[in-house]
């Protein structure tokens, strides 16, 4: 039983801190810590800095420009970057399609796509969900029909996160309708500038444009953009989902959000005292902090087991449910902490350069919107109900 970092791990943490102290742009960190939206340029600027440091691709083998971090090192990076206000890396290229290309793609695909992901030249988005295929992903209907050297793609994808910035999309498409749903799916890489593709924004309940619908009308995709074998896409999709699921518990993000909440609750007053000293409110904070403490240890237990050669299985699913519920509770409390000032939607105060008077607290403006936005946490990456199905099947054998 040893819950401490080794000397090497501590040295690594110092290295991470020194790097972030020196290289993380203050304006970007301020946006992240204040829950403001980041622009495409913000993301790209930070990615470039990370790439130069050689710390962008932490899931890749070194031969492709990845960095070989242990599970504990990844955890340290996650903790520190959340604490510092590092932008969440946009995972679709570096952490999703890249591992699939590395494992199942051919040499040409590796040469063509991996360097462009590292350099930030390509911005990838994910073409999985469809209007009729959410949790039941295998029921997807977007068709790809082989015609000579091309596939002709017709259909619609949805919930495409930051698709408005992307120039590439990886898609699950149906190439065979004669077989079982899972067996007729292929994995295609598609250039978003191909004629016939239309991106339409979906405005979410908080007023933000984060997700999109993507329409495909007779889109010609060269056959060399097929990853692996035709009709074997489901295997690759599932492989990718295991990458998606790790880290979805967001323990580091919850820790940062809780810190933010406690600071807020120390500034807000109730009955002439800081809200954090109010009996009812302090107990709500205490409860979520306790739950987060338990989830953080559970997370470390999984990391230590992977470090020792274990495979993160359905335990990550259980933790995804816990972790997302905890983050949602923290968002809920932050919204409650500003009382009636949760009601006004003061857009100008979302701008970090705003120098007028604040309607209430300097950090109040994004809180209600953020609460609504993060209802997504228990839906995406496999809804929490789907996660429970996975645990039920994989661990419990039910």
């Amino acid at each position: 039983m040893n819950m401490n970092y080794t000397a090497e791990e501590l040295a690594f943490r110092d290295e991470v801190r020194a790097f972030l102290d020196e290289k993380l742009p203050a304006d970007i960190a301020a946006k992240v810590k204040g829950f403001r939206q980041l622009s495409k340029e913000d993301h790209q600027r930070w990615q470039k800095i990370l790439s130069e440091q050689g710390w962008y691709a932490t899931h890749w083998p070194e031969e492709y420009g990845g960095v070989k971090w242990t599970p504990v090192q990844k955890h340290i990076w996650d903790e520190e970057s959340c604490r510092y206000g590092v932008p969440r890396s946009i995972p679709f290229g570096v952490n999703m399609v890249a591992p699939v290309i590395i494992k199942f793609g051919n040499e040409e695909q590796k040469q063509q796509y991996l360097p462009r992901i590292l350099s930030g030249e390509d911005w990838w988005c994910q073409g999985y969900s469809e209007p009729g295929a959410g949790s039941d992903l295998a029921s997807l209907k977007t068709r790809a029909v082989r015609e000579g050297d091309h596939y002709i793609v017709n259909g619609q994808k949805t919930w495409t996160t930051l698709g408005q910035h992307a120039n590439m999309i990886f898609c699950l498409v149906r190439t065979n309708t004669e077989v079982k749903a899972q067996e007729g799916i292929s994995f295609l890489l598609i250039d978003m500038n191909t004629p016939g593709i239309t991106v339409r924004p979906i405005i979410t309940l908080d007023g933000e444009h984060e997700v999109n619908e993507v329409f495909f009308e007779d889109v010609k995709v060269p056959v060399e953009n097929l990853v692996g074998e035709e009709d074997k896409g489901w295997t690759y999709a599932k492989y990718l989902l295991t990458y998606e699921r790790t880290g979805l518990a967001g323990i580091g993000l919850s820790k940062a959000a809780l810190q933010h909440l406690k600071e807020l609750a120390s500034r807000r007053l109730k009955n002439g005292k800081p809200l954090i000293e109010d009996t009812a409110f302090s107990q709500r904070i205490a409860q979520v902090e306790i739950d987060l403490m338990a989830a953080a240890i559970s997370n470390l237990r999984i990391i230590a087991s992977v470090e020792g050669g274990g495979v993160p299985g359905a335990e990550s699913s259980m933790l995804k449910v816990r972790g997302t519920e905890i983050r949602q509770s923290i968002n809920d409390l932050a919204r409650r902490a500003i009382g009636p000032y949760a009601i006004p939607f003061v857009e100008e105060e979302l701008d970090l350069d705003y120098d007028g008077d604040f309607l209430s607290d300097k950090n109040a403006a994004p809180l209600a919107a953020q609460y609504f936005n993060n209802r997504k946490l228990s839906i995406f990456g496999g809804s929490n109900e789907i996660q429970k199905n996975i645990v039920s099947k994989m661990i419990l054998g039910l």
Partner: protein
Amino acid sequence: MDFRLNEEQQMLQDTVARLVRGEYSFEKRLEFSESDLGFSENFWKQLGELGLTAVPFPEELGGFGGTGVEVQSVMTELGRGLCIEPYLQSVVLGGGLISQAGNDQQQEQWLGGIASGETRAAVGLQEPQSFYDLNNVETRAEKSGDGYVLNGRKSVVIGGHCADVLVVSARTGGDSRDADGISLFLVPADAQGLEKRTYPTIDGAKGCDLFLNNVTVGSDALLGEEGQAAEVIEYQAGRAIAALCGEAVGVMEVACDLTLEYLKQRKQFGVPIGRFQVLQHRMVDMMSELEQARSMAILAASVADEPQSDERRRILAAAKNVIGRSGQFISEQGIQSHGGIGMTWEYNFAHYAKRLIMINHQLGDDDFHLERYATLLQAS
């Protein structure tokens, strides 16, 4: 980072597991519970012979100075067997208080016996009005000659009915809720003026309320410095919380195993009921509660024998809060998943369910520890 037990700790846990498996069938437990003693004298003896009652004590007392992790390993297996022997009261709490506060003579007099199991201790730290607050003490100890006269009542002293020595808190100064002015006394079970109202507990053990009516003890009965016992009590209650977390994890493991097995084997509507998603998700929630409890038990064990600090206080309060809530969840949802059979005396699940609920009533429930944690919250 490594959360596994080391080889020695694993061997210790296996020893307890083997002993429990061999001696503690469900049917035998019911017999032990219904006996006059309220547990198995023979099993207790074996705990002693195998050196298990000596685990937290130093080598010269036959132990190996085991800390939170070792004590928890023992407690987890005792929990799995739903054992009702007063290990927590005698070894962890009684032994702990005497080790920390006792002078050489007192340690010599009591610890050898407690470590070998030949002597049993019990602790009277709560009172009818104290509601888990161990600083809420109204029992008085008045100086008389070179000793003290004790008057008052101590509540729910598990194992008190058969203890050779009772460690009780009493006030030598201060007001009824002050930390200052609390003292500890060693009271022999046969002391004049000490009365016991003995009862079975709903989860199968035995305990009593102690009535101290002009109980006269010598100055050598004072354990530790007069009026300065609050810190000792808080510290040892913390060790006991960590131990109790270990027991709770053992109980929850079996409760979850039993429920899962039942879901696979019980058929309704022509299929095992575990095919129904509503029951699958409930089972996943139970497992998830168990995992959170296990994480907090590990954390609690890691600080149990560390020097006192706010960090230690926070972790132990958090752990007891989590254990209390997950225990209640697993207990209630487990009974619900079993349906009618979960309500019966003759099926073992119900007894696990009862123990889980009662663990929440020992050393402070989840509300008590949430409040305690909230007062320790720091905005830092």
